[in-house]
């Protein structure tokens, strides 16, 4: 990213950036329209006042990057057709508004309260159909944890780690740990595919299967590891580091005591 910011000072950089922005916008527009075709989204029951309030909030807080009417600018993609779920996820986890440009938006304390987030979602949902907010019944964690585990390992574990501890992607991007992420946000991430995460639409993983995955995640999140402290659930690297530093450290302490003379 440093390299990018240096090049930005080049006179042609503005032109390049403009072209890039147009490409991204166009590309995402294509994505959005395609999603629209395939997604048989239910619409949430937002009131007209939600939408109106959301529009004001959007104009004040988001339009700088995403443009008036969320049609996108050089700095941010169009949000037409991304759906309420995408807004709820991005704003609800604090990823939007973005702290700074970088390989990836970081999770941070949310800037808007639930009501405001809802209003923003309502506004963006009114611009074009997209994945809606999930129904409560899918988030209750009452599904089949074993089935969810199997689906998680096939579809999610390669990026998020088998114990949902997170993992690295290319060039500074990463898949975050899922500990402490709410059921709603997990669901929304699956249907909208934020940033570089692929989309898992309902034809790929059915809503019930998503419920199973959430059940599994909540199960492993709430139950403690039977073996004791987990060392970050990071696998053999953490274990090796521990035995070298703590294990051998304690042993060396004992050997020094053992071979020293008493006073």
């Amino acid at each position: 990213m440093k390299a990018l910011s240096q090049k930005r000072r080049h006179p042609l950089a503005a032109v390049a950036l403009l072209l890039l922005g147009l490409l991204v916008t166009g590309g995402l527009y294509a994505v959005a329209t395609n999603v629209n075709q395939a997604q048989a989204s239910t619409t949430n029951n937002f009131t007209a006042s939600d939408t109106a309030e959301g529009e004001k909030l959007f104009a004040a807080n988001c339009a700088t990057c995403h443009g008036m009417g969320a049609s996108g600018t050089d700095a941010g993609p169009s949000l037409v057709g991304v759906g309420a779920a995408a807004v709820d996820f991005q704003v609800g986890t604090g990823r939007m508004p973005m702290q700074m440009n970088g390989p990836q938006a970081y999770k941070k304390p949310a800037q808007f309260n639930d009501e405001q987030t809802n209003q923003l979602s309502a506004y963006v949902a009114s611009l074009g159909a997209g994945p809606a907010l999930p129904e409560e019944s899918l988030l209750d964690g009452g599904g089949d944890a074993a089935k969810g585990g199997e689906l998680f390992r096939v579809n999610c574990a390669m990026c998020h780690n088998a114990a949902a501890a997170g993992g690295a992607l290319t060039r500074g991007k990463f898949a975050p740990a899922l500990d402490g992420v709410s059921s709603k946000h997990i669901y929304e991430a699956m249907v909208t595919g934020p940033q570089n995460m692929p989309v898992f639409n309902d034809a790929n993983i059915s809503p019930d299967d998503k419920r199973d995955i959430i059940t599994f995640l909540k199960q492993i999140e709430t139950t403690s590891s039977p073996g004791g402290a987990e060392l970050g659930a990071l696998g053999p690297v953490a274990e090796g580091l521990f035995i070298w530093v703590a294990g051998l450290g304690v042993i060396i302490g004992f050997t020094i005591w053992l071979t020293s003379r008493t006073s």
Partner: protein
Amino acid sequence: MSAATTTAEPAFVAKTKGGQITNFVDERVGGSGILREFGRKVFPDHWSFMFGEVALYSFVILLMSGTFLTFFYDPSMAETHYTGSYIPLQNVEMSVAYSSSLNISFDIRGGLFMRQVHHWAALLFVASVAVHMLRVFFTGAFRKPREMNWVVGSTLLILAMAAGFTGYSLPDDLLSGNGLRIIDGVIKSIPVVGTFISFFLFGGEFPGTAVIGRLYVLHILLVPALILLMIVAHLFMVVVHKHTQYPGPGRNDGNVVGYPLGPVYAAKAGGFFFIVFGVIALIAGLFTINPIWNYGPYDPSPVSAGTQPDWYIGFVDGALRLMPGVIGDFHFEFVIFGFVLSLNVLLPALIPAGILFSVMFTYPWIEQWITKDKREHHVLDRPRNAPTRTAIGMAGFVWYCVMWAAAASDLIATHFHVSLNDVLYWLRALFFIGPIIAFIVTKRIALALQRKDREIALHGRETGRIVRLPHGEFIEVHAPVDEYKRYKLVGFESPEPLPAQPNENGVVDGSEKRRALLSKWFFEDRVAPATPSELEAAHGHHGDHEAIDSSADNKSISR
């Protein structure tokens, strides 16, 4: 044990209980001779001498906990559906091996504890073997007459890694299964026979249904038997050679100073077994290791982020990660006469490990050839007093650590918020320049420490007390060291480079010339130990440090 032993005569009546037991044993197997030899055998005492014992005790703990695990573990790759008490895997299809590992963890009392003891002890076993070898290397304990024992020890390191690796795969979980798959990929890259070896190992195509059972036999039978055999040989040679000792007053190559085996050393060593066991038990009770229930059963389709081997195989995995498969348009995979040569896999899998192990096995003879020092050594070198050897060791260690770190490249990236690709670019550079920097820096540090020793031997230690002399000069008062401490600082050899020698025909051949060059490289930078006359001079110029330094300069430091 407490009573003195006596020769065995039928009419003999021992006066103490201990004597009676000794006599009983002696009359039947003749143990007196052994006891007489060992009962008061002297062992030097130093904390760095204990790592071999840590390794031995970890191995004993491994045997005990491993035996428990074999009672419940079933090395079958047959399909089954899990019915145990871990809910997130209920009714999932898996192998019997994985299912029985889960049962050990969740349904057998103390099973999880034993599994964790076994795995933590395994990590500690290999780690202590490694640290023990580093200690032996850096103190020069591998020198004559202990070269053979160094080789046996190196073999033990490889066997320990083999034991660990074969055990790692047994639970047949997703993590170890992907590990096996990587091994399969590496084996397949072997020219000519690779495909055949892969099919023979797995009993057909990967993963097949045979490999777990085969690894199990290796893990519980062949490898531990070889380790035991090597340990016996190792300890036998330790007894024959007697232990080395650090230099110091009263210690020389003709004696061994320390505590007698009975009672002090035996008590310390025996007590230490319980301490090692206690530490492992504490770790196993409080810290999860290898949470196989997180990984799920092996299935060729999924994989988890952060798939890594246990630490001792890490450096090979790291080397695999460091190697670029394509540079520009140059591919490291070749097709020669219609056959495939995958250098992008073969080179990193074989070359670094090959170099490390072959240098490790032959180092005693390499050094002997360079220095022409074929004497017996029983007094160790302090690492600073053999700067070049210490630097070589650190260069190798850093090289190893770079590969080791590469195996954790993804975790370094996520935990320090840097780009995964940048981590690997840096490590690729360090792979080449890291050892060189380490060599130079270590050698300089060793020489600096030697100079510091010289300073202290000649001028005493700094007290931090500043005194103003009558004519206004400020000096720091130095307290002289006593002769015992001083001897520790000066009682070492500092050989000079050995020029090329003519052979029996009076000719200096090429190999001898090369040896002389290496000898120059090995001994060129040296700090000579302080001598009594220098000390005399130092006392003569008390307080005038500069003068002494310049007079000692040409003697102490060449170059």
